């Protein structure tokens, strides 16, 4: 016969508390993403711009 393990109430309390903290953080992330979404401008130009190093334009130098 296998012995069925009983759920301990304090296990549930600790797990529940940790889960609630995680939920708050995840919803915080969603809020942060939502703010990012609002920030996205219709024209987002040159997220990264790479210019070639300046070449020496003066042939004498």
């Amino acid at each position: 016969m296998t012995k069925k393990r009983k759920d301990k109430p304090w296990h549930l309390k600790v797990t529940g508390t940790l889960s609630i903290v995680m939920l708050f953080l995840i919803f915080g992330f969603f809020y942060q993403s939502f703010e990012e979404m609002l920030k996205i401008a219709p024209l987002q130009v040159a997220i990264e711009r790479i210019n070639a190093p300046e070449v020496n334009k003066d042939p004498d130098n």
Partner: protein
Amino acid sequence: MTDFININPPSGELPEEPSKDFPWRGIVEGFAWVMLLAAFIIGQIATRPDYESMLKEALPGDVLIRSEVNTTLPVVYQVEGSEDVVIMAEGEGYGGPLVVGVRARKSDEGGRLAEVLMLSHKESPAFMERLRRGHFFKQFGGKDVSDDFIVNHDIDAVSGATISSRGFTSTVREAVHLGAVNHLGLKPDWKQPGWVFGVEEAVLVMLFILAFIAGYHNGKFAKTAKLIVMVGALVFVGFYANASLSLASIAGILMGYIPAPQQHPMWWIMMIGVLGSIVILGRNIYCQQICPFMVVQDLAQKISGVKLKIDSRFQKRARTLIFFLSWVALMLIFLTAHPALGSYEPFAMMFSLEGLGIQWYILPASLLGSFFVPRFWCRLFCPVGLYLNELVRLRRRVKGWFTKTRKQGS
């Protein structure tokens, strides 16, 4: 030997379907699907940028004359009053499509890359930061247009952002070489990129083969194989390649962001390995062995030695909760058409140590949970695990249906 915790309940003990006595369940589910579809359509229409305007805004001093009347990228522009050409092209990054504009300038040697503009991308901020810190973009400035532009040949990839590095490089290469041949009159004597199947891809294939062997067999060899796979997953899939599956990966597929196999074979190996294990073995090998964050959680749990049991009712509620969280995340992703914006998992941050704002708190909180509850994240919050387990469930149903039909037929 490592203590393996199967997050997939054994066959026949999959979580029960929620009770049917809740009358609004169908309505709520239907509403959720309609909302997702609406978000997808709105996102596709509203987030379609006008790249030409973006390019013109980025180059305010130049008058750009479109060379061809193309409706799709790449598009070439002549710069009025100069011999410069600007080419706009689209490629595939890790998170989705990316669009670049490159300016090629005629020189005595042929041509030079004068300017590169990244106009749009779907990479996560962490990956972009990694590329910037790795001075990846600086490698392009001033390069000759007839250079090869091949990663690990004349361009160095940034480790942990290899796919992004390859995606950006190949997009720039396509644009530059198009300009070089058609508008600067150069002969294409550069090297063509081949399949990028190297050591990294071979390691990933080996990990999956070992995981398959471990999934089919029992005994000492299988245990050793599992251990090798777990170490490999942590070191290679996690810290080296930072290639964990996330909600962003799933959403990317739904939005059609599927990279070319020649360019991103690792993505394909991962997908074939993960789905193949479900179809062939009927097991979710990714969550059981390949996921590096699972290994991290097991290590945290080993260190603490505490194993708090999750109440069975609590575990059932968690399933609904993950569906809800992933629904919110998918809404955000579809509305923005940006997979990284809704991906709330701590994986990328764990293995790159790059994150933004509240992500810095999600990672330690999930690790703290793992100190007390075995595989805390996997069991209570992970959408990837939930969806892969749903596929396992679907496979069992289909198999059961086939078996039943065959029995009835004979």
